[in-house]
């Protein structure tokens, strides 16, 4: 909370400026979508109107505490509001007399509120002009005249303007002989309203828990902080029957108090951050993560901290090049920070529809933050198959994106993509965030789930198979790095590694390659090694014997040279296995490390011929 308050104070210069996405809204203002724009002159004479598309419609409007959180009551916004509030003649165009009466009451309230502002010391030429125009009570007539609304027989048709029903269409104004013309871009007007509102506010004064000073206390807090759970409030106190605050305290007011200004600032800062740099996990049930620096300095995107996806020209990176690239990318960010600058990471989610909760919160020093990201990037990495612009596969070193890890470990294949249930995605994403930012060791079950999937490749398409395999290898690498306290698994084939699983992994790759090498170009069936991979993992020794037998016809098809080459390779590996391991342990299920051996051996075998020969000598 305090950090958000500070964020607002530091970014106050951004408030109210029209920027991309959602602007940081001012105290007592909010951003709404306008559907109609009316131009008037400073005398309040109608000069034209047109409708607005959704992209044009973003408008900062002044609000009161009551109007900002209105749902069904009739609390008018002070300046720009929907037609039913703002148009004095709206009621005349309605056929339903009951609805007309309601609309009239709304207009009266709106007009009274506007008059109050015009007559206060904080009036403004634009307000006066709008007030003159409103008082003429001919807005609907004017709008029909300019073709924005449609009517027949003196009644409005049930149509929509910019896909909003007439009654709910929000109107904004442009005063054409002033500068700036747009009412929603005039900072002097914002100022006037904030001052007016501060003086006109009546309310209990008390000590604000955020600023520590006496202020007018707000009983209602804004909703709509993150788009994902729009109705949820971060601060709420409406449960007066159960014991959420009752007990020691009798009323919600006793339990805590937050000043109007403070709550406005906190919420607009949060809304602004969530819209600008929020990362959402899940598709329907969403959890939003935000990562920011309270002083408004640029921080990397949490989902893709290394800017990997911006890479327009994929090329092959070796491990060293990749390391250098990470360092470059991160130090670019880091240089903008001073040593003591903080980075805050926050996760927001709602367990029920009404209340928003902070599910992850961490404040880190900038340098710590980048060191941790770097550490994650350098230990959780593997070769991935990427495609160049002309769709040729290349191998590059990458750190899998967090969402991709979750999808590979827990997803199911739907169509071309791997998908996960939102609940799983949310929870697992959070666990990975812990690994990334709190340097927790990678949980074994995540790694294990990915390994299981990688060991059973048949249900997946080729692209997903490779993705899962590489992700699993990255996770194994990370897991072993955590366990071995900093010793990384080498990303080159290690001929001296006599681990049983590693060797069996290599053997599997050789068996696969041997069979595949006899395939013609069009052959798409799976080699026996692939089909039996799952069995191989559980009973490596006996499955190897089956595979060996099945391979005989393929050996027949090979040229004597390659037959010799593969047979030699197989017997080398088998020698190593039998030398270093007792017969009874040979048939035990393989550990996850076999995938590493498999991947590296396969990579080795797939290298162009000339390389291979050099290495053999």
């Amino acid at each position, binding site marked *: 909370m305090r950090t958000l308050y500070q964020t607002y104070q530091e970014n106050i210069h951004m408030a109210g400026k029209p920027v991309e996405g959602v602007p940081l809204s001012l105290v007592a203002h909010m951003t709404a979508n306008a559907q109609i724009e009316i131009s008037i002159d400073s005398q309040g004479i109608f000069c034209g109107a047109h409708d607005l598309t959704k992209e044009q419609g973003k408008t900062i409007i002044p609000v009161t505490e009551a109007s900002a959180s209105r749902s069904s009551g009739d609390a008018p916004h002070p300046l720009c509001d929907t037609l039913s509030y703002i148009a004095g003649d709206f009621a005349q165009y309605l056929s339903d007399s009951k609805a007309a009466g309601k609309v009239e009451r709304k207009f009266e309230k709106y007009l009274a509120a506007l008059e109050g502002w015009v007559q206060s010391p904080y009036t403004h030429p634009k307000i006066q002009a709008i007030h003159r125009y409103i008082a003429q009570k001919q807005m609907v007539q004017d709008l029909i005249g300019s073709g924005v609304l449609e009517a027949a027989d003196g009644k409005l048709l049930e149509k929509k303007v910019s896909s909003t029903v007439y009654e709910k269409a929000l109107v904004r104004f442009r005063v054409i002989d002033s500068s700036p013309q747009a009412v929603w871009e005039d900072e002097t007007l914002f100022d006037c309203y904030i001052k007016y509102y501060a003086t006109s506010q009546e309310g209990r004064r008390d000590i604000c828990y955020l*600023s520590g000073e006496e202020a007018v206390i707000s009983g209602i807090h804004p909703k709509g902080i993150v788009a994902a759970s729009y109705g949820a409030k971060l601060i*709420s106190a409406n449960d007066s029957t159960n014991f959420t605050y009752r007990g020691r305290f009798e009323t919600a007011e006793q339990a805590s108090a937050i000043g109007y200004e403070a709550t406005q600032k906190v919420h607009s800062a949060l809304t602004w951050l969530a819209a600008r740099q929020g990362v959402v996990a899940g598709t329907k049930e969403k959890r939003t993560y935000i990562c920011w620096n309270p002083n408004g300095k640029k921080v990397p995107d949490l989902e893709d901290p290394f800017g990997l996806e911006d890479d327009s020209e994929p090329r092959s990176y070796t491990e060293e090049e990749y390391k250098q690239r990470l360092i470059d990318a991160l130090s670019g960010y880091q240089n903008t920070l001073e040593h003591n600058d903080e980075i805050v990471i926050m996760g927001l989610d709602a367990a029920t529809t009404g209340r928003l909760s902070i599910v992850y919160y961490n404040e880190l020093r900038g340098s710590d933050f980048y060191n941790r990201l770097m550490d994650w990037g350098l230990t959780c990495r593997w070769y991935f198959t990427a495609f160049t612009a002309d769709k040729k596969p290349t191998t590059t070193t990458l750190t899998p994106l967090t969402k991709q890890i979750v999808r590979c470990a827990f997803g199911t294949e739907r169509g071309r993509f791997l998908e996960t249930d939102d609940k799983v995605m949310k929870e697992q994403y959070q666990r990975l965030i812990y690994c990334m930012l709190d340097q927790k060791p990678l949980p074994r079950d995540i790694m294990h789930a990915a390994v299981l999937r990688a060991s059973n490749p048949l249900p997946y398409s080729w692209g997903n198979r490779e993705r899962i395999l590489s992700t699993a290898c990255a996770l194994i690498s990370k897991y072993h790095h955590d366990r071995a306290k900093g010793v990384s698994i080498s990303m080159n084939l290690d001929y001296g590694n006599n681990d049983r699983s590693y060797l069996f992994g290599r053997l599997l790759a050789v068996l696969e390659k041997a069979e595949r090498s006899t395939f013609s170009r069009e052959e798409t069936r799976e080699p026996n090694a692939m089909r039996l991979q799952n069995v191989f993992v559980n009973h490596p020794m006996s499955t190897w014997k089956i595979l060996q037998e099945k391979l005989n016809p393929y050996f027949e098809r090979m040229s004597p040279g390659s037959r010799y080459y593969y047979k030699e390779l197989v017997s080398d590996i088998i020698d190593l296995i039998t030398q270093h391991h007792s017969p009874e342990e040979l048939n035990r299920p393989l550990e996850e490390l076999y995938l590493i051996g498999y991947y590296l051996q396969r990579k080795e075998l797939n290298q162009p011929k000339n390389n291979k020969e050099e290495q053999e000598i």
Partner: protein
Amino acid sequence: MQHQNIVEFEVSGDYALFSDPITRVGGEKFTYQVPTYEAIKGVLHSIYWKPTLIWVIDAVRVMNQIQTETKGIRPIKYNGGNDLSYYTYLKDCKYQVKAHFIWNENRPELLHDRNENKHHNIAKRMIERGGRRDVFLGTRECQAYVEPCTFGEGESFYENTPQLNFGVMYHGITYADEAYSEETQGNMTVRLWRAVMEQGVLSFTPPEQCIHRPVREMQIKPFGEKLGNFSPIESEVV
């Protein structure tokens, strides 16, 4: 008071939840980064307390890195049914505490019990034995353990952090029976303070110097044989 009556101990637990009152009223508890004065006072009450004395917390030293963990909770409602919410806890907590006691002048009937040596020694013994009642950090589900220590010994994670500012924070509640001023007499008063941690040490503002927010009227709870909530020592003798 002739002596300083200082006690020092270390309290540690897997979790702690010092809820921020702002989010707490809605039911989604979210913890402060550091313990509140009142929570540590509660720990001391669990260790040893008599109405004769008031515990005053001098300082808390945060030993471990501040980390949080969120849990999905299904709280049972008072009127039946259940709710769903997320509680955010501090994880792997260890604090060194330095505190002393003063006499509670609001209880003149206990004047004869004001024996510094006795209370100080009992308190120290209770720390060695881990407290009289079970100790928890912030909320009841966060069990914690107490051990004697020398305040300042060992390395804190924040040893090299000159200053961490936590802004305005809840300090505690002054109840009528521990009132120290006219303002706090006959009232329940919430105290707020501006929390600053220097090299891992939170030096608490004494209660009298906090920002005061009177909440409601409240009277001292009377004790006595006639009220049926007090039994004299004679009745305990077998």
